[in-house]
């Protein structure tokens, strides 16, 4: 079933178009890898889908009953977070905020959900620790737990492994793979082309040429061969 449709989408900042005429669809349970060279607008695309940037033209539609509050997002780390005094539990709980409306405090259900997400990411032992004292891999898992607290339907990940060491990277990919096989739709940007594409079932390549389709088609296509050849 289709969850997200982008039709003739043009995206960019301040009246300058970065990517033009982009169309693709994401079905529930898909694992879509967004690839392309640096600066072609991958992050801009994610932010446009999330509603942080307005599309210049074209349409983004959620279907299958998907609402804005059903979206989980794993952003790139910001500067602000590096010395932020917040406990792991506080960060994960904050994933619930969007569903609270004007209710001021977390209810038991939300606290329980945060606990489950902490368990899933194996963070229960360090839930009292401060976010700023964690390793890069742990921090990513905390942010992922927060995203899961918000929803388990669809998850957008912006370069989830860019700040991780090799072991952290392998762990992260396996966590994402497990989430996907448990039914979460994944849309992920990655630089790390080979590992990113390994688990994906669909690929969106943006840049000078645009490709959207099944992974196997991409691997056999002219554009895919050239890009992957360049990486290796």
């Amino acid at each position, binding site marked *: 079933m289709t969850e997200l449709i982008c039709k003739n989408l043009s995206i960019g900042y*301040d009246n300058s178009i970065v990517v033009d005429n982009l169309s693709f669809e994401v079905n529930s349970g898909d694992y879509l890898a967004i690839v392309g060279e640096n600066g072609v607008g991958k992050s801009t695309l994610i*932010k446009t889908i*999330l*509603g*942080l940037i307005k599309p210049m033209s074209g349409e983004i539609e959620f279907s299958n009953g998907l*609402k*804005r*509050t059903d*979206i*989980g*997002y794993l*952003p790139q780390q*910001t*500067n*602000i*977070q590096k*010395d*932020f*005094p*917040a*406990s792991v539990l*506080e*960060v994960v*709980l*904050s*994933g619930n*905020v*969007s*569903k*609270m409306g004007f209710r*001021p*405090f*977390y209810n038991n259900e939300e606290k329980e959900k945060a606990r489950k997400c902490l368990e899933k990411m194996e963070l229960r032992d360090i839930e*009292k*620790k*401060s976010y*700023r*004292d964690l390793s890069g891999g742990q921090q990513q898992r905390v942010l992922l737990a*927060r*995203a899961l607290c*918000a*929803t388990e339907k669809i998850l*957008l990940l912006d370069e989830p492994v860019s700040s991780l060491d090799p072991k952290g990277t392998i762990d992260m990919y396996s966590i994402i793979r497990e989430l996907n096989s448990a039914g979460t739709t994944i849309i992920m940007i990655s630089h790390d082309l080979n590992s990113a594409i390994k688990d994906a079932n669909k690929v969106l390549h943006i840049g000078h040429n645009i490709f959207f389709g099944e992974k196997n088609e991409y691997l056999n296509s002219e554009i895919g061969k050239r890009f992957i050849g360049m990486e290796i």
Partner: protein
Amino acid sequence: MGEIFEQLMTYLEFPFVRYAFIVGILVSICASLLGVTLVLKRFSYIGDGLSHVAFGAMAVAAIAGLTNKMIIAMPVTIIVAILILKTKQNKMSGDSLIAMISVGALALGYLLMNIFPSSSNISADVCTSLFGSTLILTLSKTEVWICLALSILILVLFVVFYNKIFAITFDENFATATGTKTGIYNLTIAIIIAIVVVLAMNLVGSLLISALVIFPALSSMRVFNNFKSVTISSMIVSVVCAVVGLIASIIWSTPVGPTIVVVDIIIFFIFFAAGLIKRKAVQ
């Protein structure tokens, strides 16, 4: 010691001294609550910028001959606060905008006070509004009530929006992306900051408001590791500094604002050292 205590008790019999303590405690609580968010959002300077705007607005109010200067200062400061937070996303970066508004309002205010002098001693007037030297001891009963009402409003807003303020401070993009109406909360934060700044002018004067906003938060962040403890600690630190500063300024007849700030600075260094020791102990 007993002598100082007695002296203090004598002073506390005067209503204006009691007013000063009430307002001092209220303002320091409100300022410290906001401080944590502002420091973490890299907006430490907004208090400074807004206080200069409030100074300019007060100058205009004085020329207009208004007895309650807040009538002009409050709305002007709120509007500027909203503008600053709104333009943050736009091209002009936050810090240069704040610097511009800050200096501009200060200069304009002083210029206006000179062109249309409302009293014979302008430099004393200016000094008072900049450093709050005696302002807090001249509060009227009405001003104390206004301060009390606004402080309660701020406290209620902060408690009700606490979890949202945390989410937005930690990661505004995530909050917006997952469907939180961040606009409303940012607006609330802007309004609260503006109110705090105008209230705090009475306590420490416009030059030192930043200190009241950022020092307790910065001190607490040295020692505490989660948002809730940092917030609570800032509140306590801020109140302690205000009370100690007020008492010291009465005993040694020093200007109130700078005395409070000096106490804040001392506490900061104590917390800084405590933080270092704590981190060493953990390793």
